[in-house]
C-alpha cells in the first residue's frame, strides 16, 4: 500500500500546474471558450509539446503514460484551470483506437499525441440518455464497406474533430450490447452534417447527422465494440472526475478566501458557525471524492468487474459531491457568486455539468447495484 506519487507523475503534475497557473487565467479561458472552435489551437499545440497529450496514452502507441493515475494527475490540474481544450474528447476517442485499433490505425495516435489530429467520439444519441449500449445509428453492409445512417447528439467537441469515431449498429436491437461497431469517419465526408453549439459550462458539442455515409471496410475499429466503449468510458470517467476534483479544490479555496475577507454585520462571515460547518462538510466530502478517484484510478487496469464497480462508485460520488460543492460555494458567496465576471460560478457550472457526462449519479448508482449483485 503506497499512496505517494511516483517522481514521473509528480513532474507531470507540476508541469500541468505551472502551465495552468501561468497561461490559463480565467479571462483567457473565456476568450478561448468564446472562439469559433471553443478552444485555442495554440494552447493545444503547447499541450502536445509539453507531453500532456502523450501522458494519456501508452508507450506502444507513442505515449508515455495512459494509466489511471496518469489521467488523474493531468486532469486534476486541467480542472483547476477550467481548461476548455478538447483533452477529454481526445482521451476517449483515442482510447478507442488504442484499445481496438489495428497496428495501422494506431499510427493515428502519433498525430493525436503530436497535436496535429483531433478526434471525437460520436456515440450519444437523442434517445440514449446515458445507456452505453443504446445505438440506433445503423451500419449497413455495402459492397465496398459500410453505409452509416443515424443521428449523434451532444458529441463532445464533435464540431472541431479532424476525425470522428462513430458507433453504429451492425446487428441486434437498439439497446443490445452485441452488434455495435466503431468506424473512423471523416467529418467532411459526403452525408455528414455537423452543427456545433456551445455548452452552458463553456465547452462545445456537435450535433451530427449521418445520412447514408459511405465508408470503406478498413475504417472499422476492431469487431464487437461494447467492451471497448465501456473501457474507454472508464478512462473518461477517471479523467473527468479528476477534473471535477481539481475544480472542487479551486472552488473551495476561493470560498475559504471569501469567508475570511467578506464582512457582514461588521463580522468576517467566516466567523458564522453555520458557514464553518458547511465548509467543513464540503472538505470531508472532497476527501471522499479524492479517495474514490484513487480507488478507480488504481483499478482502471484491473479486470472488468473491479474496474467498473470502482469507476461507477467514483462517478456517483463525484456527482453527489460536485453538486454539493457547486451549490454551496455559490450560496456562501452570495450575489457575487452569481456573476459572470467572477470566476467561481464557472467552476460551479462545470462541476454541475460533469454529472451530465458519462452518466449521472443515478445512472451510476444503478450500475453499482448491478455490479454488486453480479
Amino acid at each position, binding site marked *: 500500500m503506497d499512496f505517494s506519487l511516483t517522481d514521473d507523475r509528480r513532474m507531470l503534475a507540476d508541469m500541468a500546474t505551472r502551465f495552468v497557473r501561468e497561461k490559463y487565467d480565467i479571462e483567457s479561458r473565456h476568450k478561448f471558450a468564446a472562439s469559433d472552435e471553443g478552444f485555442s489551437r495554440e494552447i493545444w499545440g503547447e499541450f502536445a509539446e509539453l507531453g500532456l497529450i502523450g501522458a494519456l496514452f501508452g508507450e506502444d502507441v507513442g505515449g508515455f503514460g495512459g494509466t489511471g493515475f496518469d489521467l488523474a494527475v493531468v486532469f486534476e490540474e486541467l480542472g483547476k484551470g477550467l481548461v476548455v481544450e478538447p483533452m477529454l474528447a481526445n482521451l476517449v476517442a483515442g482510447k478507442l483506437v488504442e484499445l481496438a485499433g489495428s497496428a495501422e490505425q494506431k499510427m493515428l495516435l502519433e498525430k493525436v499525441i503530436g497535436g496535429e489530429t483531433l478526434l471525437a467520439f460520436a456515440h450519444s444519441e437523442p434517445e440514449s440518455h446515458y445507456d452505453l449500449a443504446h445505438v440506433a445509428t445503423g451500419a449497413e453492409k455495402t459492397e465496398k464497406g459500410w453505409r452509416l445512417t443515424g443521428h449523434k447528439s451532444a458529441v463532445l467537441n464533435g464540431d472541431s474533430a479532424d476525425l470522428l469515431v462513430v458507433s453504429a449498429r451492425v446487428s441486434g436491437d437498439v439497446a443490445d450490447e452485441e452488434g455495435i461497431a466503431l468506424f473512423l469517419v471523416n467529418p467532411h465526408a459526403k452525408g455528414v452534417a455537423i452543427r456545433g453549439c456551445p455548452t452552458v459550462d463553456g465547452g462545445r458539442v456537435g450535433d451530427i447527422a449521418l445520412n447514408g455515409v459511405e465508408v470503406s471496410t478498413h475504417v472499422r475499429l476492431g469487431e464487437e465494440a461494447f467492451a471497448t466503449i465501456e473501457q474507454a468510458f472508464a478512462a473518461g470517467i477517471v479523467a473527468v472526475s479528476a477534473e471535477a476534483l481539481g475544480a472542487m479544490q479551486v472552488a473551495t479555496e476561493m470560498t475559504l478566501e471569501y469567508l475570511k475577507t467578506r*464582512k457582514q454585520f461588521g463580522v468576517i462571515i467566516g466567523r458564522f458557525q453555520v458557514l464553518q460547518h458547511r465548509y467543513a462538510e464540503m472538505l470531508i466530502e472532497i476527501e471522499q471524492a479524492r479517495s474514490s478517484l484513487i480507488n478507480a484510478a488504481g483499478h482502471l487496469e484491473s479486470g472488468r468487474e473491479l474496474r467498473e464497480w470502482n469507476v461507477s462508485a467514483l462517478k456517483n460520488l463525484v456527482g453527489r459531491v460536485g453538486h454539493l460543492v457547486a451549490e454551496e460555494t455559490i450560496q456562501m458567496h452570495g*450575489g457575487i*457568486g452569481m456573476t459572470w465576471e467572477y470566476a467561481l460560478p464557472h467552476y460551479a457550472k462545470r462541476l454541475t455539468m460533469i454529472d451530465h457526462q458519462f452518466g449521472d449519479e*443515478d445512472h451510476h448508482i444503478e450500475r453499482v447495484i448491478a455490479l454488486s449483485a453480479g
Partner: protein
Amino acid sequence: MDLNYNDEELAFRDEVRAFLKDKLPARIADKVKKQQRLTKEDMVEWHAILNDRGWLASAWPKEYGGAAWDAVQRNIFEEEACRAGAPRVVPFGIGMLAPVLMAFGSSEQCDHYLPRILDGTDWWCQGYSEPGAGSDLASLKTTAVREGDHYIVNGQKTWTTLGQHADWIFCLVRTSNEGKPQQGISFLLIDMATPGIEVRPIILLDGEHEVNEIFFDDVKVPVENLVGEENKGWTYAKYLLTHERTGTAGIGFSTEGLAQLKRIAKAQKKRGRPLAEDPLFAARMAKIEIDLAALRTTNLRVLQDAMSGAASPADSSMMKVKGTVIRQAINDLARRALGPHALPFVSEALDAGYNEPPIGPDYANPVAADYFNNRKLSIFAGSNEIQKNIISKLNGL
C-alpha cells in the same frame, strides 16, 4: 376545516381564468412557457392589459385604482396567472414602492406617482443593496447630503433588477451617521434621467443581463422627493417586509415548474421507457410533489392567518426558505432529466424569432441555464441563512 375554495372563491377563480384566456396575448404566454426572454415592451403590454381590467395593482385599495383583493384572491390570481403563462407583474412600483407611498408618503406624492405607475409612465427600480451591504442592509454607504432645496447623492447601488429599463429608482440613502446604522437612513425617489447617474449591467452566471450596478456621482435630488421623514427610511423599508406575504412561497412558479418537469420526464427516454417511470427519478419527483402539496396548504394557512391578524412574523421566513428550496429542487430535477441534452446552450435561442431548429429536444435549451439562474432564489430577498436567523430569533434563540 375545509380545504376547498368556497363558492365565492371559485367564482373568482373562474373569472380570472376567463380573463386570462381572453386577454393574455398568446405570443407572450408562448414566450413564458418556452422560458424565452421577455422584452420591456412585453411587460409593459401585459401591465396595460391588467390595468385596463383594474387588476394591475391587485392589493391596492380601490381609491388609488387598485383591485383591493384579499390574500386568498391574490393567491388565486397568482396560481392562475402562472398556469396560463402570464408574465409576473414587475413588482418594484406596484408592490414595493406604492405601499410605502400610501403609508408614509405625502398625498402629493401619492397623487403624482401612483397613477404613473398604473399607466406605465414610470418604470421603477429598487435601490437598496450595495456592494458592502447585501444581507446586512443597514451598513449601506450611499450618502444624501442636504444642500438647500436638494440632496446631493453619492454612492453605488447594486443587484438592481431590471434597472436598465427604469425611469425612476427608490433608494435607501444615508442622511446621518449618528446613532445606530439603521437610524440615519432615508427613503428617496430619484429620476434616473438626472445627470450623474450611470447604469452598468451585471451579467449573471448564465450570461443574462437582469441586474445592474447604479452609480451616483453628485446627483441632485429635490428635497420633495424624500418620502416621509428624514432618517426614518429604515422603518419604511421594513414595513414592506411585513406588509407583503402573498407569493413569498412562489407556489405558482413551483406548480408550473413541476408540470413542466413532468412533461420533460415523460418525453425523455431511458432505456426506451419514459424517464418518469424510472424508480429513482420518479421518487425524486414524487418527493418534491409531496413537499409542494404541503407547502401549498401551509401557504393558504398563512394567508388565512394573515387575514385574521394571527400570522407570526416567522411565517414569511419559513415560506421563503421552503418555497425557494422547492423551486430550486424542481429546476435541479429538470436539469437532471435532460441527461446529455442539458449541456448545449444557445443563448440566442432564448429570443423570440430565433429560427434555427433546436439542438436536442425543443424544451431543453433554457433548462440548465435556468437552474443556474435560480440559484439566486436562496440568496436574494434575504438569503435563506438570514431567514433561518430570523426564525430562530423569533423562537427566542
